[in-house]
């Protein structure tokens, strides 16, 4: 009897976690999948059926938006990493006693609402705004030049909004690195570049992965940047889902696209983990 209870103890102890997952993940997910397969309309109600055609429709109608979202998400994640890594590195290794001040400055913009920050970029980058306006009047760039309404404005907005989310996990990973290991590399005649790429970067891999999770997943599903900074050819899958839900009230399509997006994102994350490391994903995430 005693042995039995010892055997079950771990499961009993993990019960709250399972309950949490069930309530906040499994039930909503089930509800979403159910809705994706439903037929009907908002007036007469929905009936759950085996309407798998919604998935093929979602793919055939919106594959371009899926591809675009993953493209924007990938480019913005890589660019963010390239910018965030030196920032995090500098704060972790050279921040000295002001580390927390720098980190505070980094999150300072977040005291302003997300949408307002994107709107501010719309103002800054406008055709006759204070960036392009003077350049145009000096004749340095042609009158017709515009940054807004292009894919670069959207990707730029994504990078701007995700920067702090990448710096934070990178900083935590870099901060944890044992400085003696770095010195040991030097003692073994590694050049600074070799030390950086062979020692520091591998040791900060968990931070790179954590940031990737935060940034890539958010950016692929984003719709605000495309909405405000984008133009006619920058519609992302998030915009389609948002429109389906709130403008067209096509709930099954919205649920279907949301679940497709989720599965594709999971696939991308597993691929990342497979390609960039043989460690298990759990090891990366911790």
């Amino acid at each position, binding site marked *: 009897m005693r042995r039995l209870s010892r055997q079950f103890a771990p499961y009993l102890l993990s019960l709250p976690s399972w309950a949490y997952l069930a309530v906040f993940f499994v039930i909503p997910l089930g509800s979403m999948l159910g809705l994706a397969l439903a037929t009907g309309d908002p007036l007469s109600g929905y009936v759950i059926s085996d309407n798998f055609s919604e998935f093929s429709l979602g793919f055939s109608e919106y594959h371009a938006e899926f591809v675009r979202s993953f493209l924007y998400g990938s480019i913005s994640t890589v660019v963010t990493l390239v910018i965030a890594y030196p920032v995090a590195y500098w704060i972790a290794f050279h921040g000295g006693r002001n580390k927390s001040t720098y980190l505070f400055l980094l999150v300072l913009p977040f005291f302003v609402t997300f949408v307002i920050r994107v709107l501010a970029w719309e103002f800054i980058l406008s055709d006759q705004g204070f960036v392009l306006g003077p350049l145009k009047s000096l004749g340095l760039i042609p009158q017709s030049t515009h940054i807004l309404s292009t894919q670069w404005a959207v990707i730029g907005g994504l990078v701007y909004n995700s920067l702090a989310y990448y710096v934070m996990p990178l900083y935590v990973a870099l901060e944890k690195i044992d400085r003696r290991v770095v010195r040991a590399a030097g003692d073994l005649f590694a050049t600074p570049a070799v030390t950086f790429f062979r020692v520091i970067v591998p040791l900060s891999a968990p931070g790179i992965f954590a940031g990737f999770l935060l940034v890539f997943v958010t950016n692929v599903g984003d719709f*605000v940047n495309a909405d405000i900074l984008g133009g006619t050819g920058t519609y992302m899958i998030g915009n389609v889902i948002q429109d389906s839900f709130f403008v067209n009230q096509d709930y099954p399509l919205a649920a279907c696209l949301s679940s497709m997006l989720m599965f594709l994102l999971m696939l991308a994350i597993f691929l990342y983990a497979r390609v960039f490391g043989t460690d298990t994903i759990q090891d990366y995430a911790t």
Partner: protein
Amino acid sequence: MSKTTPPDDQNLAFLRGLTQPRISRADFMRGAAASLAAMALGGIGRADAATVKDWDAWWAAQKPTDKFVFANWPLYIDVTSTGSDHPSLDAFTKETGIKVTYKEVIQNNAPFYAQIAPVLKSGQSTGYDMIVMTNHWELTELILQKWLVPIWKEKVPNFAKYASPSVVSPAYDPGNKYTMTWQSGLTGIAYNPKLTKREITSFNDLWDPAFAGHVGMMNDNTELGSAALLKLGIKPVTSTPADWEAAAATLREQKDKGLVRQYYDQSYINALENGDIWITQAWSGDIYQANEKGYKDLKFVVPKEGVMIWHDNMCIPIGVTNALSALAWMNYYYTPKVAGIIEDYVNYFCPVPDAKAYIADVIKDPAVADSPLVFPPAAMLDKAHDFYAFKSYAQFQKWNSIFNPIIQA
């Protein structure tokens, strides 16, 4: 539709930013969660919407109350300079003893509908005794779902007496069974003559290759499709799916030639003010406000093919507790005096033409009284077209399936 402050407010641009009908991520998640919860909990079936069979008896059973809750769009009623008092509402309270709780909770039709629909479906009260909805699909849906209380005509004699013909018995609500218009407005064309370098008179000008990359169109597919229908000389209100296809084809051509800068929501006005776009589909009230706040060059035109007119409508959702009080306000609003006080502040189309004299003679504000954008001359109203009124969800879906691919790409 846009609701904006009077021009004396220095923070106008900031307020506009705050009140734009965009959906924040949080709102989106909240709405999505509410919808899903409603579907999961509601057993995903048809609710017994029409529990009330005999509305005459329902009205007869209503007790007079001394309060009601009024849900409206931001910056859409008169307000004192301190921003706390609404003179028209206070006068109403003084006269009738009915206290009004005024809430600016409606940012856009579709998200607001998404908020109240699950509540109405479960047969509960939304907490609002009166709401204001534009004559878009969501209003039709409220009517089709039987989620609006039919108006007790005998209690609103002022409507028959003072209402502008443009708001009497509209296509979306024949006989004004459920709605009375709060404000109307036009969707025409606005442009910056300095940048277009010529006068704009027609919807065809939105297709002019000379403006390539500087044309703004709306991302509201009802507005977008209707503009294309007018361009082709088709009356939107009697159009057919074949017409819609033709309209979509001309819109696609406009996009493929690179004429369209972006399909805008409310933010088109900023883009126009910034010079990002030279010519755009526009709401009349926005251009009036832009002129007042210093963008004097911008012009609003009623194109020769016609112009779209929209109406924001007062209506009473089911489950209310202060229906008689809400009705008393609706009747009170339809007088030259009250409509005039509010119109002098709001500056859209006044549904009470006689308010013009009140604003000119009593308030002494000729700028508003003489503005064709507030009191449109008959010639302008003759050119005004109503939106196509969807008769079923299938029709709404058909429209979406034709026009959405243009915006979504």
